């Protein structure tokens, strides 16, 4: 079970200045470990900072403080060559299949870009490799010379996956890869990702708001709320023995496609809305909506503590 830690964040913090309004804390001190070959689900609602965290991991954003370690090395102190190597090892697939492909590049050019940048294959081999990648993601050879606008959303997502796969990454950050797709297509893409993981042994950081999907595919799940991880545990543990009130509310809010179960369920309805991550106070970020909050919760922010082996929660009341 103990696998090598590939990617690790240490007290990672990323904020954005919003003119005239203050500081938006997108990621506020996150500690995560991603092991080789595992799937870590990162769940949260909109504005919780999960996408920013993912983008910081692939070096699209530079963190304000804290470190990101890849195989024990800080990725922001790398030299040019190591940096290029990091971009090969850690890849990302994106949410919007319509925005994530260059509309002017045919499929083979999009997929081949990584090969060209890293000088992996040339000439005939390059062509062969692209065709092989197309087949790996369930597309045909004939698709290689077409433009993105000729494809459906699901097919575009496959192209995006092939592009990431081309450089043989060891970590794939999946940023809501299925939320823009239809139900029947979602399952296709998930199955594809699962098959590819078996074939290549990649580790996934799977960012999503869809808890039922993430539960089905993840080894571990981290729940994020307003920039912090509030609970993290193995997928089954999180579902069966969650202890953070936010996780509880989140799980109870998800509708289950079964009328009888739905009729019997009791929902914990959270009052109010997700607060804005601008100018966060000192207390627990969830205190304002938490049914169990007391004075201490408004005063100090709880640390992530281990409640049982491999199960962490950040709550004063646990």
């Amino acid at each position: 079970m103990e696998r090598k830690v590939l990617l690790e964040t240490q007290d990672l913090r990323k904020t954005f200045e919003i003119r005239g309004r203050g500081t938006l804390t997108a990621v506020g001190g996150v500690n995560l470990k991603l092991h080789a070959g595992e799937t870590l689900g990162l769940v949260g609602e909109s504005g919780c900072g999960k996408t920013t965290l993912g983008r910081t991991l692939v070096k699209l954003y530079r963190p304000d403080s804290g470190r990101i370690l890849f195989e024990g090395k800080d990725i922001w102190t790398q030299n040019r060559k190591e940096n290029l190597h990091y971009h090969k090892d850690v890849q990302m697939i994106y949410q919007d299949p319509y925005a994530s492909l260059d509309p002017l590049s045919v499929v083979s050019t999009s997929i081949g870009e990584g090969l060209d940048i890293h000088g992996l294959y040339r000439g005939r081999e390059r062509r062969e490799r692209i065709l092989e990648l197309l087949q790996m993601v369930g597309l045909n050879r004939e698709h290689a010379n077409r433009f993105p606008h000729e494809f459906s959303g699901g097919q575009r997502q496959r192209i995006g996956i092939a592009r990431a796969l081309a450089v043989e990454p060891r970590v794939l950050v999946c940023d809501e890869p299925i939320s823009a797709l239809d139900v029947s297509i979602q399952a296709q893409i998930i199955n594809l990702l699962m098959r590819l993981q078996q074939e290549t042994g990649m580790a996934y950081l799977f960012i999503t708001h869809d808890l039922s999907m993430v539960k089905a595919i993840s080894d571990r799940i981290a729940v994020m709320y307003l920039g912090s991880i509030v609970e993290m545990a193995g997928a089954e543990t999180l579902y069966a023995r969650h202890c953070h009130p936010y996780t509880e509310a989140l799980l109870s809010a998800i509708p289950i496609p079964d009328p009888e179960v739905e009729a019997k369920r009791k929902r914990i309805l959270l009052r109010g809305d997700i607060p804005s991550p601008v100018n966060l106070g000192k207390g627990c970020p969830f205190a304002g909506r938490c049914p169990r909050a007391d004075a201490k919760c408004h005063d100090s922010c709880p640390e992530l503590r281990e409640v049982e082996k491999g199960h962490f929660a950040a709550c004063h009341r646990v």
Partner: protein
Amino acid sequence: MTEHILDVRDLAVSFFTYAGEVQAVRGITWHLDRHETVALVGESGCGKSVTIQTVMGLLQSPPGRVTGGSIHFEGLDMLKLTPRELRSIQGNRMSMIFQDPLSYLNPTMRVGEQIAESYRLHHRVNRREAQAKVREMMELISFPEPERNMRAFPHQLSGGMRQRIMVAMALICSPGILFADEPTTALDVTIQAQIIELMNELKEKLDTSIVLITHDLGVVANMAERIYVMYAGKIVERGSAADIFYRPRHPYTWGLLQSVPRLDARQDRVFRYIPGTPPDLLNPPAGCPFAARCPYACRACAAYMPEETDFENAHACRCWLYHEGAEELRKKAEADWKEQGKEVGSHGEEGAS
């Protein structure tokens, strides 16, 4: 038959684009009774949104055009109304909430005014009476700080609040029917739960019927009493919620139910899924539109659109599997479905909190 508040028969809608005629809705028959919630379920492009836009009289024309069928709302032939008569119904006796509230709210108008607008349009009331009604509505939807928020502009409110405003706008005239087009898709789960709760509650209080349009089977399971499953402009299966969820008959419905992961299911990394993509409605296939993706497709499916087969309790489905000639195939298909049901562990209640 006359009790149906809404009765849609053989409705066909096409869009005439420069590429040709896109047959978005291809002859569908459905109805809505008083006090009930009916769901039209299907994936994007199946024609569900076009259907209710047509019923509401909101179809963009051109390029859209009703090419056949009829729509009766409380005995009125909706397709023969004058624009003026139509306007007196829209927003008053039937109204609609949309997926993306921000684009349907006027950004330069205070939300209180916007809620009042349709009420003042359809009832001869003065500003003060309208304001009182708005206040009453805000209370009904348990809007926080109604006095202050009535004077807010849409961009000052969060997504969930905006959707509440939309609900209030839609329901202020106590319409007979509320159409909800993906009302919760753009919302976060905890907010989605609030809105679903709100709609269920208001349906009771205001005596409204709801037509729910969504692809989210979880939301359907929570709200709908009857379900129409749509695929490529056709209704492929219809029945009570229990029939559709527990005794589905159409291979597409099977596929759809198996494609969604369930929070209460055992961990299972591989999902059943439907291969391929829906057909292009520019040139819809002659036979069953699902044939190309169906594991049980046979020659008949490719050649002819199946007729409707009725089961007990107004449960019906359009599939050749239920023709007497296809018995062998049907047995195989049904065995597969039962087998998979066990695998996925449906109806399991492990630890649902």
